[in-house]
């Protein structure tokens, strides 16, 4: 049960991290923005549920194309090439269009994209300050959650930043383990609702708080498979983009605080961030299950997973980053 609680001391260097981008304020289909990111690393030790392995390795190589399709729509495609376990994978991580001209602070996005839940999830991994996502992301969201679906967002016309969004996704990568392959999953399995507020404190500091809720119709693991499933998860070392721990309801609370002297990010800046995950309703009974009174394990409503992290990053020029983090994930 404590697979993720092991504290592993690691030295990870994400060197040779290079990015190239061609951008224009007035991108169009004939002049799209193009960006490529290469990420080579060397790391000692292994992290549980991690994508990176010990030694030299190549992280995600990302190629993205984006453009304003016309005055009303923006489109983006991001492909990611990964090599893991000696195999090279090509993944389409984003392929979406977004509205630019809906009135009253509304916008809609459809296709494949990164869910806006939590703080880190909607950010590309190459922009992270750390080589791996926090354990909570690795366990509950399969590193970062992108999926096929739609989103509707709203930004309130207030001086205090306030945005809200709802999303619906197919939810394939967040399905509970289905050992026998006979489970009838919902096609639209994941619904989210989220809100964020934020603002400035003087010239030097800014903050944001977020609350997200993720409903996973396919997240409940059936009690009959309870024991087996856990065994399987504990042994799992293979490369996977799916969540390892699922539940019907996921709640995420996140905060970010940023500071720079005079608000000038050029030479020094500090970012503090943290998120808390709670996944509830993990086990349920299969529909049609008849309680014969012979089950020797009880299904408790109190079962849950939780995980959290805190991180602080201090960046100072020329291009040095000092970072420390407290990764934790309990009850796993």
């Amino acid at each position: 049960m404590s697979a993720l609680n092991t504290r592993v001391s690691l030295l990870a260097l994400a060197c040779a991290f290079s990015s190239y981008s061609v951008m224009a304020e007035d991108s169009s289909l004939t002049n799209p923005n193009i960006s490529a990111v290469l990420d080579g690393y060397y790391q000692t030790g292994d992290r549980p549920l991690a994508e990176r392995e010990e030694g030299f390795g190549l992280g995600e190589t990302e190629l993205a194309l984006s453009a304003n399709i016309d005055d009303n729509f923006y489109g983006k495609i991001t492909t990611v090439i990964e090599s893991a376990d000696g195999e090279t994978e090509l993944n389409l991580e984003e392929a979406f269009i977004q509205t630019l001209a809906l009135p009253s602070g509304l916008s809609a996005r459809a296709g494949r994209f990164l869910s806006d839940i939590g703080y880190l999830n909607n950010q590309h991994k190459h922009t992270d300050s750390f080589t791996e996502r926090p354990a909570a992301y690795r366990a509950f969201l399969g590193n970062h959650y992108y999926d096929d679906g739609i989103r509707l967002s709203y930004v309130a016309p207030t001086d205090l930043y306030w945005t809200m969004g709802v999303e619906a996704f197919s939810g394939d990568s967040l399905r509970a383990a289905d050992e026998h392959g006979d489970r009838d999953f919902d096609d639209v399995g994941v619904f989210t609702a989220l809100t964020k507020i934020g603002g400035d404190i003087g010239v030097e500091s800014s903050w944001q708080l977020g609350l997200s809720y993720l409903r996973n119709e396919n997240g409940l693991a059936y009690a009959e498979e309870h024991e087996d499933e856990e065994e399987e998860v504990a042994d799992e070392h293979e490369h996977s983009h799916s969540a390892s721990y699922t539940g019907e309801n996921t709640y995420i609370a996140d905060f970010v605080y940023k500071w720079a002297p005079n608000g000038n990010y050029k030479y020094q800046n500090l970012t503090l961030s943290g998120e808390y995950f709670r996944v509830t309703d993990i086990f349920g009974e299969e529909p049609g299950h008849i309680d014969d009174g012979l089950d020797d394990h009880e299904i408790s409503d109190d079962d849950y997973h939780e995980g959290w992290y805190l991180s602080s990053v201090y960046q100072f020029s020329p291009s040095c980053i000092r970072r420390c983090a407290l990764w934790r994930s309990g009850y796993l």
Partner: protein
Amino acid sequence: MRINSKLLLAVAVMPLLFTATAKAELNVFACEAEYASLAKTLAPSADIYSATTAMQDPHQVQARPSLIAKMRQADLVVCAGADLEIGWLPMLQMKASNPKVKSTDEGLFFAADQVETLDKLASVERSMGDVHAKGNPHLHLDPERMLTIAQALSAKMIELDPQNSSEYQQSLADFSQRWQAKIPQWQEQAKGLAGKKVIAYHSSFRYLFNWAGIEQVADLEPKPGLAPTSSHLASLLTRAEQGDVMAVIVASYQDERGAKWLGERANLPVLMLPMSVGGNDQSKDLFSLYDSLFALLNGVK
């Protein structure tokens, strides 16, 4: 758990019920302090917000929550353009979901679209550093260009808010008259500076130097956007030893350390010039910003 999701939905729908109260005044979002100041002069009763101060590098701004909230409410967004804000403006526009300010056909205004920029490049490669193909975007320190920009910005305001056109026309007339009266004074002050040589940080003062006839013989940055390196500083010291350099110049948002190192060794004065309105105590508007710039440059002995 059903209750929870319903609650969240209720919370999500609630603000849609509040409709934005109709505002009589133009709501202006300026990317830089100089354009906030210009907008204030041209539309004294407008509600104006500046995304950056003179102490912040406009190349590197966080697309932070407060900026999204301000842009969401804007009728007009005024920026330097020429890709200066490329790292953050497009993201803000997308997150703010405000169709009024998405294109220059409507409430988006780029100063660089109104005048000729200097140092346009036919081709740009990443190895050249942080350069702009559309030319140098720091164009607010050329008095003549600024006058053209003011005329175009005033026209944009009238286009967006025709009811108050007489107010905008009056403000522009006042500004133009005062500005044109100032230009000969600044020309007088620039006389003694013509032909002088300086070493400066980045091409921040390109237009000012161009207008005043000052020559920037070297840059503290080895390449645009890169911090000074010790080997590069050493080569600047060799250059400074030729004895023809008047001063080492940095802008209010730039790091002074490299300049001070060079200044001490080459025995040159180091000048920190205000990059925009608010860059020093004297620079309270565009007029006093220019006054302060020329006073500081002429103060070098």
